[in-house]
């Protein structure tokens, strides 16, 4: 073996060695960062769950001892015997699905319109859409309640959905992605004779499906937890949604019943997390399908 070659091999192995261990070290470092972040993310949820299975008199007396001494399902049993929980979850689901579907639909149309067309007052109208993100519900809710009640819609699903058909965030986010959509694809679709709507829904949408899925996830979770507006327009016990339901365990005068509150919160969080786990798989599939990687 020639001297040069030896050096070459040594160099190579040194390089490989460094790359190999460099990767290892960085992986260990990152994993510890993520484990730390995971602990912070999960600690409150963990406390929620352990509190839900603690007897009432153990909740605060146990200090840092996170695990209950004598675990109990009494809070869950109380909740299940007193409330129609499946109905409450169903109501929440219907509200969240309706809101998400309609908001994503209008946002997609509007974002496509703004991203791909020129028309008078284009920029002013676009700014008006984004500005909605900065108008708190407290500013518009009284006026909207009057409108909804004049239409005779109080205590109906449309009362919840109608004032929220459009969403600035949805338009803004989808706009940013539609803006960079390759024009060539659209042009070729047009040559094939596809109409405006069919171009959007059959050509463009399949490609940006993962993006739509991501924003839908966020809109869905937001709708799932929506409280201020639904509590104003839904007044019947049989229309109760999870966020409204949860509030009754926090009572200003009588104090908070933590066992029940935490058990109820868990019942509210679990379906949403379950849906996310399912949806994530779908989103991943959508990424693979569309040639993007998540």
């Amino acid at each position, binding site marked *: 073996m020639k001297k040069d070659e030896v050096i070459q091999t040594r160099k190579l192995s040194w390089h490989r060695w460094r790359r190999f261990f460099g990767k290892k070290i960085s992986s260990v470092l990152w994993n510890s960062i993520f484990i730390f972040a995971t602990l912070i993310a999960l600690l409150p949820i963990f406390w929620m769950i352990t509190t839900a299975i603690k007897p009432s008199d153990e909740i605060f007396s146990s200090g840092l001892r996170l695990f209950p001494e004598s675990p109990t399902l009494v809070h869950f049993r109380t909740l299940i015997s007193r409330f129609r929980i499946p109905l409450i979850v169903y109501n929440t689901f219907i509200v969240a699905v309706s809101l998400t579907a309609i908001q994503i639909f209008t946002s997609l149309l509007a974002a496509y319109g703004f991203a791909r067309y020129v028309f008078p007052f284009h920029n002013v109208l676009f700014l008006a859409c984004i500005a909605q993100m900065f108008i708190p519900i407290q500013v518009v809710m009284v006026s909207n*309640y009057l409108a909804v009640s004049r239409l005779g819609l109080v205590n109906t699903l449309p009362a919840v959905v109608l004032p929220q058909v459009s969403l600035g965030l949805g338009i803004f986010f989808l706009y940013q992605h539609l803006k960079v959509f390759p024009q060539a694809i659209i042009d070729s679709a047009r040559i094939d004779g596809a*109409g405006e709507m069919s171009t959007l829904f059959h050509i463009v949408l399949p490609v940006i499906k993962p993006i739509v899925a991501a924003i839908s996830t966020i809109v869905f979770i937001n709708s799932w937890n929506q409280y201020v507006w639904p509590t104003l327009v839904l007044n019947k016990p049989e229309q109760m949604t999870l966020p409204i339901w949860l509030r009754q365990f926090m009572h200003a005068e009588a104090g908070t019943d933590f066992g029940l509150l935490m058990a109820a919160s868990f019942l509210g969080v679990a379906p949403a997390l379950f849906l996310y786990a399912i949806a994530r798989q779908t989103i991943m599939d959508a990424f693979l399908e569309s040639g993007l990687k998540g």
Partner: protein
Amino acid sequence: MKKALLILIGAFVSVSMFAAGAKEAPPTGPVTIEYWHINSATFGEKAVVNSVNRFQELKPNIKVVHRFQQGSYGGLLQNLQTAMAAGNPPAMAQIGYNNLLFAMHELPHTPIGNFSKEDPQYSAFINGFIPGLADLGKDAKGVQHAVPYALSVPVLYYNADLFKAAGLDPDKPPVTWEELRKAAKQIRDRTGEYGVGLQISTSNNWLPQTLIESNGGRFLDEKGEIGVSRPEVVEAYAFWQQLAVVDKSLPVVTDAEQEQAFLAGRLGMYVKTSASMANFIRQAKFTLRTAVVPGWAGKQKRIAVGGNALFIFGKDAAQQRAAYEFIKFLTSKEGQTIWVLDTGYLPVAAGVADDPNYLKEYFDRNPLTKAALAQLPHSVPWMPFPGPRGQQAEQVLIEAREAILGGAPVQPTLITATERLKALLR
């Protein structure tokens, strides 16, 4: 074609949404009234349902629909204001005592007193209240706008285990604020745990009123002058500050935090509303005891009551009449028995607590609530600042308290607060 498709989709969306919201069926039966309350499933809903059912048996031609409102009295009032602006208020509702003046002067309602001519039993109804209590629903001119329904008073809750550990006698809870201070310091020194917490709120001055008025002070005196910087008020706030700053026996934390600390067994005494009793009994692991709220040595106690009063907001005469009937039932001995048994509020009806047919057995069984009952003779109306800026004025006092407990000099802080109040209330 394409545009037509777009329009079609738009139309479809709106039609399908409206279709989902079929109109409600018109009310059946002679009169249906809506009753708004704040009693959630874990606090008093059972009492509301039982009252409604029992009333149905007594007056079959009045149907009461009860609607729970989220977010306590503030939440109820918010929804009530919105419903009123939309022109469809409920026939009757609970109004928290802190919003009593606002409701009397600003919300369109039918004063209970309007029925004095119509109803031959009106005076019997008003005299059925514990003497003086019906006056809580009167304004300065003596008009009976509403009647009290839920009644709560501050109570001294204490941890008997911590008392023992600190060498204090759990059978001799402090009677005066000075004794309370000593006991609190002893707990702090001997056990290392905090001695006492006083209920505070970020939107009102309920307990401070009791503290100040029992010392002879007034936030607003009879002549309508602001008394916030007078010696009696300064003295009471200075006392509070000494607990926190000098003795360090009172933790300067939020109310939710001191409640958790008390339940965790790390706070010796806690002056808090009697409405929290059931919750404390359920969540405390230590020996929970109660006593009457302390007073100032040699001075007459004046205890501000909390809870709610019933108002009639219905728009037509039949609704108002029906609501009046339901209110009479709710405040009767029978109505109060249903109410007190489930909520732990104090009864407003005279004689019901000692009546073996009604609540005697309950009070015998629950010695803790006796402490609360013993306070009633000293009760006075909860008096937030009046007028359109009254609630805003409460905030000035809250911030003054926060500053004082943070160590700011008491008198100058209260003088500044007085100036701000003058500007607001003029």
